[in-house]
């Protein structure tokens, strides 16, 4: 016979203002099996917990019901207190008489009666509780970092420097991400490559980091501490171990007019190519869609010139399976597609470019060697118009958010232009200047005052060509919405930062949630900014929302600490809320009939098949068995099992039926 103790909390006046706590305590004392009941002002306080502990010892309680707030709030507190008094913590349950009773109903007899009903229900449940033991799960101390941009690089280095193994998976042939495309960075104007490339090299050389470039995540199974991840290593048509990166193949390749993605189409590359000179790894890949051999069946020039015979035309994609304890998603962002702005003539006029293309023009390693020359005829533009918020903050076009980085990089572009073309005039059309951040406002001020950038507050309605000039027509709202027309030589759009085109698919593979713009969603916008809703999967950088470099790096280090904290223990303690198939000795007497419907519905592939054999080794029955490490305790199999062979610890059939009956019968 169970000995239940009931502890009713006043929660100051949060409960007692509408519920007669003394009456609830007194009446629950009369319930069957309840041997002790009391009420107290703050049950979660130190004296309150001591009261429970002493009562457990004094009255030899083996079950405890705390009628207080939501179990989502204080269940761990009271279970810990019970455990300290020598009780199995899973024999303590909470009745929610605050959120579900005192706060939502007025002071009345009815409210007190409801509180009593809730207590009685939980008393009936707790009588059927069984002592459970927390489950220990080992942790694989390897992290997978998806994406090799600045966030991924920072995260991988931080985790690796804590002494844990890291596998970095990058989709492109080289790591570096968007940051490697930038010329200079705000607000210090230090060269992006100069600060990034040493980090890229560090990743490649770090003994704890395994780098897979030109690779993508194929599938993710398992759970925190024990993920099984399949990685597709796309064929580079190259034996990387043999290749020395001499680059002879890239100079001899006959296909030379392929728009270079790294230069955002402003330069050309060959079919066998290294994306940029500082690439890591600095070894080429063959772009099969543009390669003469793969398309027409003849050529093989690269194979002929390769001094070490490293070219492998018959190489196939390779799927490798790795185990990991945590994943950090740093897949970054994309820039709005050009066809978004027919009114700005992007795609129609060669001299209307986006911000990332301007970065390439300004970059010393770019297609113009750092000279600002317009793409159409290579002339130096004397008047240049920057259009901020191109796509951002435009509800009519479906992007309501601020892309955040554009105000700063537009100011930077204007400065870089002025530093290189002294007699040129930069104009900026803007909606608001958002320069929150250390030294950011001062930076914009410098662009305006020292570099004489003409800031015009207003939106541009259209860009069109007239007599070889690009006419930018807009309004100056600070001059009473006066129409403005500027004859420009070049127009630069600060296009909105958007999520990657394949982010939705990746989110579904990882089982993490995403927002309306397909950016990955954090578990809590303020308090869990680098966690996702899936335990063990973390986020960093611009895959969450547009972020600048300092923010991405900070988030990456934050995610790395979360991973390091997880890896600081050798095993993980999990709630023992897992399903179990009933077993008896001999196991052939299990009520499981082996229909394996449970196997079909289990979201975690936790159902295993167990063969029961006789003495001669013949299989006489196949039973379902649940892998406790994989089971997350949803109970879908329990409700489905037609022979009731499966039950869920903590929410067993007996407990749930007892609750339903107790709630209604009195």
């Amino acid at each position: 016979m169970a000995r239940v103790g009931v502890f009713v909390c006043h929660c100051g006046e949060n409960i007692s203002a509408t519920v007669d706590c003394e009456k609830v305590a007194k009446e629950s004392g009369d319930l069957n099996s309840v041997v002790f009941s009391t009420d107290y002002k703050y049950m979660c306080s130190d004296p309150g917990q001591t009261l429970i502990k002493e009562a457990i010892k004094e009255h030899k309680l083996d079950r405890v019901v705390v009628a207080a707030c939501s179990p989502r709030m204080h269940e761990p507190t009271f279970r810990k207190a019970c455990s300290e008094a020598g009780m199995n913590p899973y024999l303590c349950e909470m009745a929610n008489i605050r959120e579900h009773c005192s706060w939502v109903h007025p002071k009345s007899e009815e409210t007190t009666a409801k509180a009593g009903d809730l207590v009685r229900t939980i008393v009936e449940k707790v009588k059927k509780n069984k002592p459970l033991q927390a489950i220990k799960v080992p942790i694989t101390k390897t992290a997978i970092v998806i994406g090799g941009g600045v966030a991924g690089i920072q995260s991988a280095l931080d985790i690796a420097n804590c002494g844990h193994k890291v596998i970095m998976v990058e989709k492109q042939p080289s790591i570096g991400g968007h940051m490697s495309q930038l010329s200079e960075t705000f607000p210090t104007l230090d060269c992006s490559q100069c600060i990034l490339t040493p980090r890229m090299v560090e990743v490649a050389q770090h003994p704890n980091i395994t780098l897979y470039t030109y690779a993508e995540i194929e599938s993710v199974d398992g759970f925190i501490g024990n993920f099984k991840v399949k990685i597709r290593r796309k064929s580079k048509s190259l034996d990387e171990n043999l290749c020395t990166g001499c680059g002879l193949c890239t100079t001899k390749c006959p296909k030379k007019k392929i728009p270079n993605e790294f230069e955002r189409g402003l330069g050309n590359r060959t079919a066998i190519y290294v994306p940029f000179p500082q690439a890591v790894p600095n070894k080429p890949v063959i772009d099969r869609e543009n390669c003469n051999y793969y398309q027409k069946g003849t050529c093989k020039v690269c194979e002929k010139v390769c001094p070490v015979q490293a070219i492998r035309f018959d190489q196939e994609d390779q799927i490798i399976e790795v185990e990991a304890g945590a994943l950090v998603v740093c897949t970054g962002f994309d820039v709005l597609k050009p066809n978004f702005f027919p009114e700005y003539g992007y795609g129609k006029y060669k001299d209307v470019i986006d911000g990332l293309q301007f970065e390439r023009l300004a970059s010393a390693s770019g297609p113009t060697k750092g000279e600002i020359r317009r793409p159409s005829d290579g002339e130096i533009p004397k008047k240049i118009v920057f259009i901020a918020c191109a796509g951002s903050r435009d509800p009519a076009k479906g992007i309501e958010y601020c892309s955040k980085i554009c105000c700063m990089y537009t100011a930077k572009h204007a400065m870089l232009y002025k530093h290189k073309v002294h007699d040129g005039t930069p104009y900026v059309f803007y909606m608001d200047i958002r320069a929150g951040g250390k030294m950011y406002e001062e930076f914009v001020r410098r662009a305006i005052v020292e570099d004489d950038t003409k800031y015009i507050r207003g939106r541009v309605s259209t860009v069109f060509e007239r007599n070889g000039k690009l006419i930018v027509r807009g309004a100056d709202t600070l001059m009473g919405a006066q129409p403005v027309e500027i004859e420009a030589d070049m127009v630069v759009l600060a296009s909105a930062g958007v999520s990657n085109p394949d982010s939705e698919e990746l989110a579904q593979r990882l089982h993490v949630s995403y927002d309306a713009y397909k950016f990955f969603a954090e578990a809590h916008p303020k308090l869990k900014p680098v966690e996702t809703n899936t335990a063990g999967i973390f986020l960093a950088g611009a895959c969450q929302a547009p972020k600048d470099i300092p923010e991405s790096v900070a988030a990456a280090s934050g995610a790395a600490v979360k991973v390091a904290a997880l890896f600081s223990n050798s095993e993980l303690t999990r709630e023992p809320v897992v399903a179990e198939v009933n077993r008896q000795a001999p196991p052939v007497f299990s009520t499981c009939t082996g229909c394996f419907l449970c196997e079909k519905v289990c979201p975690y592939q936790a159902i295993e098949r167990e063969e029961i054999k006789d003495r001669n080794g013949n299989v006489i029955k196949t039973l379902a068995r649940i892998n406790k490490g994989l089971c997350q305790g949803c109970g879908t199999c329990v409700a489905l099992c037609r022979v009731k062979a499966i039950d869920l610890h903590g929410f067993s059939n007996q407990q749930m039926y007892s609750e339903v009956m107790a709630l209604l019968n009195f």
Partner: protein
Amino acid sequence: MENQEFEPKIVAFVCNWCTYAGADLTGTSRIKYGANVKIIRFPCTGRIDFMLLMKAFENGADGIIISGCHPNDCHYSTGNFHARRRWVVFRNLLNFSGIDTERIQFSWVSAAEGFKWADVVNNTIEKVRALGPYENYKKINVPTLFAKEDNNE
């Protein structure tokens, strides 16, 4: 049967991650709703054995609410889809058996929808109050098929 004083007994079967948390939010936001609804917590709507609904009616419930995470938001990925599918099948069976499915409210309430939870509860109370006490269930005279298993103590 149309008694103004009639207060229906309603049992709510809710999942721990969305609707239970949503009902917590209703409390935290101090939004009022009728006291006749009492919540039973499940890990997931997928855990809800629909025989529990019959058990509730058998024990005198006048109405039932089942509520969990919105489709695609399930904490366990697919539990709510199984619950929904099961409900579609079970509803047909109940209709066939002459059980009043009007008294069962199936809804999705997320952890952020405190207001929606109060609405669901109040609307269900109104609806069931209009339907009156579920006397008909007793008339069906179901044999004590379910009553046995739990009366062994």
